[in-house]
Every structure is written in structure tokens, then in C-alpha cells.
């Protein structure tokens, strides 16, 4: 009896997990199948669309790299991502430490205030920011994104790091200060190394945020050579009404899978940040 019960509950768990996975993976499965299909088969095939009647081809993958701006978009995304990560770290690390240790009681209120800024959506700000970007002469340049993206990454990163710094016992810095370090030096030498995992989470979070962002990238930049992946792939790989579906899907999968994998590794830290510290991930 017990064995049957266990078997049924196992079967139910695996069955429902499979269903949910299928729902999540549905577009990705179709994307991956599409990449390797010949035009003939993709547009005129009669059989099961998930199977191949003609041998798979790498032709469209080659086209993506040789005939489109995919690598340019990737390069732009990489530059934007790295510079925004650096700006975010330089500003959010001290801010997070300040809120965790130095500002006392009003620090907590300021912390929540900064977190709330994260909830201000780009859709509310893209029109005035477009005007500001034009006034600064940054439109049509990835620098517009480099300047604006930290407004999205700094609030959440500051909040996340504040949590990490708070979790480190005060005694450690105080011991360092008794040993003759100033607070600044003890922060750099004692606290920062202990918060490395938080800092890495911020790097991952910020980098994926720059890869995800769509509205600002769409609004500020109209020349192909300055576009990033999130806007370049869906808007530029479509020429007029002609969709190059195989190359388009290849581009999407090549970006989505690595990002998804890395993101998953740091999920717990990000969730801890999202739940405002109510849950220790």
C-alpha cells in the first residue's frame, strides 16, 4: 500500500513538473527546431513541423554571423553591459555600505526609498529621457544607454548589497579599526572580500538587466551600428516584411540560453533581494 502511494505521488510530481517545463520550453523548442531547417522545408513542408524531412542545415547559422549585424549588436551589448556594471559597482557598493552601517536609523528609510526607485518603470520616463539624451547629444549612441541604465541597476544593487553588508558582524570591522585601520580601509580590506558573493550577484543582475532592456534602447538609438541585442535582433533581422526566421531564432537562442544558465546560478540571491529581505534566500 505504502509503495503504491509513494509511486502515485512520485508520478504526480514528475507529471506536473513535465507539464510546467513543457509550457516554459514551448517557444524555445520551436526556436531550436527552426534554426536548422531548410527554407524549402520550413515554408513548404507538409509533415510534422517539429521533425525534419530534409537533413538539418547550418546554413542559416552561418548567415547570422556573416550577413547580419548580429556580431555588432553583441559587441555593443557587451560594451554597454561591462561599463554599466562598473558604474553600478562604483556607486552602489559605497551606497549600500553607507545604508547598512553609517547612516543609522534614517538609513533604513533611505534604503526603502532607494528600493522604491527600482519600481519606477522606464515606460514612465522614456519620453523625457529621450529629450534629455538628445539635449546631451547622446542619441544614436550606446553612450545614451550607458548613462541611463545605472538608474535601473543602482537602486536594486544598493538594496541587495545593503543586505549583504548588514549580515556581516560589526565586530569584524571594529576589530580591524582597533588594529589601527581607519573605517574606510577596514571596509575595503575586511568587508568587501566577505561580500564577494553579493558583489558577483550584483554583476550578474546588472549585466542581465542591460541585456533585457528594450524601451530605452528602442527609443534612444535608431542607427543599426549602435543597436544592442535586445532591440537589434527583433527589429533589424527582419527586412521589410521578410522574416529570416532561422537566423532570427538562432540569434535569440544564442543569447537566451547562456543568460538563462548564468542567471539561474544566482537566482537565490536575486530572490532574497526581491522579497526585500523578508526571506533569506
Amino acid at each position, binding site marked *: 500500500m505504502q509503495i503504491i502511494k509513494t509511486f502515485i505521488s512520485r508520478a504526480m510530481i514528475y507529471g506536473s513538473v513535465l507539464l510546467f517545463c513543457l509550457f516554459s*520550453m514551448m517557444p524555445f523548442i520551436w526556436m531550436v527546431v527552426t534554426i536548422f531547417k531548410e527554407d524549402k522545408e520550413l515554408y513548404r513542408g507538409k509533415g510534422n513541423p517539429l521533425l525534419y524531412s530534409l537533413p538539418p542545415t547550418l546554413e542559416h547559422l552561418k548567415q547570422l554571423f556573416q550577413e547580419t549585424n548580429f556580431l555588432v549588436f553583441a559587441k555593443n551589448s557587451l560594451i554597454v553591459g561591462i561599463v554599466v556594471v562598473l558604474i553600478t559597482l562604483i556607486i552602489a557598493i559605497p*551606497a549600500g555600505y*553607507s545604508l547598512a552601517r553609517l547612516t543609522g536609523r534614517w538609513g533604513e528609510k533611505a534604503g526603502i526609498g532607494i528600493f522604491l526607485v527600482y519600481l519606477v518603470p522606464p515606460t514612465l520616463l522614456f519620453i523625457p529621457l529621450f529629450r534629455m539624451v538628445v539635449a546631451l547629444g547622446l542619441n544614436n549612441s550606446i553612450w545614451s544607454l550607458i548613462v541611463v541604465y545605472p538608474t535601473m541597476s543602482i537602486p536594486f544593487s544598493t538594496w541587495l548589497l545593503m543586505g549583504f553588508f548588514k549580515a556581516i558582524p560589526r565586530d569584524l570591522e571594529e576589530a580591524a579599526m582597533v588594529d589601527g585601520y581607519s573605517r574606510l580601509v577596514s571596509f575595503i580590506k575586511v568587508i568587501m572580500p566577505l561580500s564577494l558573493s553579493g558583489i558577483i550577484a550584483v554583476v550578474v543582475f546588472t549585466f542581465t538587466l542591460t541585456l*533585457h532592456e528594450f524601451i530605452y534602447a528602442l*527609443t534612444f538609438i535608431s542607427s543599426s551600428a549602435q543597436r544592442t541585442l535586445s532591440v537589434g535582433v527583433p527589429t533589424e533581422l527582419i527586412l521589410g516584411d521578410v522574416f529570416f526566421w532561422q537566423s532570427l531564432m538562432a540569434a535569440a537562442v544564442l543569447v537566451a540560453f547562456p543568460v538563462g544558465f548564468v542567471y539561474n546560478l544566482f537566482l537565490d540571491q536575486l530572490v532574497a533581494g526581491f522579497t526585500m529581505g523578508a526571506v533569506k534566500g
Partner: protein
Amino acid sequence: MTLQKTGVVKSTQNKGFRGLSDNEGALGSLFLLPAIIYIVALVAVPFFIAIAFSFSDVTVGNTSLNYVGLENFARVIKTPQFKRALINSIGFTFVTQVIVIVLANILAVILSQDFRGKWIARMLIILPWATPISLGTIGWLWLLDSKFSPFDWFLVKWGLLGPDTILGPGTHMIFLGREWLAMASVVTIYVWRILPLSTVILLAGLTSINQDILDQAEVDGSKFFRTLFTIKLPLILPIMAVAVLFGIIFTFTDMTVVYILTRGGPIYYTQVLPVWAYFKGIDSGALADGAAIALFLFPVLLAVVILMLRTASRTEIN
């Protein structure tokens, strides 16, 4: 506060005054200042510019700001597109959140069990959230294609689509070309996208429940579902609220899905406020109208933020 102060007093007494690097107040402000400057310059300032724009006659070509009062709002409200966009924005968000919170609870309970391959399952399930939304949506656009959707093939094969069937007589569903199907498609993609986030938030809540309480319940003879509904779910209610509020924000303010999938079509049946604000404000250059439309997002956001703060303070007390 006092503890912190005494710590510093001690160290300054021991080692003497070392200026800024040991001055708590000054150092604290200095550390915080760049973040505050950044946020004020590029969030607060544009926010007030958005309000100023919405009361002015500014366009892309004309940079002068003339006060026109509520004219933009009045003009925008009169159009049928506005009504539809407002209803859709609220409706899509509401329906999405209802579906997501039900599915996320089920999924989180499943994932809180121990089973083989859990790590892989979690990664596959999180992928829609981790993928750049524009690239995920382009996959859906192809999945729902009017001519080549694989759904069409399966529906025809299963005898559900085609001449003399329930969904026939055509052999294509044309998901994005029909009013209700297009709306359902948009909601499906939002569910697909937000479900992973809500699930992992709830999962974190479930795993943080004190094991002693659960052990006690088991000793008292409480069965799985009884424990779930009388102990676990009530305990994670505040965290569930956080998940819902994030879901609301990410659905209500998103423009990517509709922009890529339907561009608001067919006609303007799937139009939402952010996409319409983009078309008006940037594509047609009517910055003032665009700013006015986008500002209609604000009351809802404000309500969400207030609810969020309340939830946060409640969880702190617990």
C-alpha cells in the same frame, strides 16, 4: 545607533583623529551621495519633466514649452484607442496575475518537494524570466505565426481545425489576427514570463518556514494538504503579496510584448498604454501626448508602491 557611536569614539580615542576616513557622518553621506545624485538627475528630474510635458504643447520638432493645461489629457481621453488601451492594460495585468498566482502556488509546492532532476527542472522553468523579453516574444511571434504555426498542424491532425471541425473551416488559427485570440496570446506570454519569478519568490517563502512548526504539525497528525492550506500558505501570505505586486508592475508597465507581438493590433484591440505612449510620443513625435498617456500608469504604480510598503512593514513585525 549608540553601539555604533561608542565603537567609533573608542577607536578615535585610541588612535587619534584621522579625518574624513573615520568620520562616520561625513563618510556615510559621501558614500551615499553619488547614488542620490544619479537618481535625482536621471529619475526624479525626468519624472517632473514628464509631468511638465503632459501639460505643454511640446513635440519632437518644437522644443518650446507652452502651458496648455489639461488639453492633452482631454484630447487623449476622447479617443477610442485610449479607452481600449486603459482597459487592456488593467485587464491583461489582472487576468495574468490571477492565473500566475494559482499556477505559481502549485509549481512552488511541487518544487519544494525533493525529487531527482529538480535543479534542471528549476532551470528550465526559470528560462522564460531569464531570457531577454524581446527575444522570448520573437519566439512566440514565430510560434503563433499566421501561416506556419505548429499549433495549426497539430490542431488539424487532431481533427480540431479544418473544414467540418469545431475550430474550422479554415486550416489556420491566425492567433494574432483575431481580437480575442490575440488578447489571449498576449496574456499567455505574460503568464509564461511572470510565472517563473512568482514561483521562485513563493518557493523562497516556503523553504523559509520554520521546520519546527512543520514537524509539530506532522506529530499532531496533519496531512499534506491540511498542512499546506492551514499552515504553509497563510505563513507565506506576505511573500505572496510581494510576488503579486512585482507581477503587477512588470506586466502593467511592459511595452515589449505587445510592441513585438501585435503592435497593438488587430486594429487597436490589444493596445496597451505604454505601447500607445511610444507610438504617439516617439513614432509620431507628439511628446506631450505620449507623456500624458504614460502618466496614466502612475496612479496604479503609486497604489502598488503603498501596498508594497505596508506588506514590507508587516513582514518586519512578524
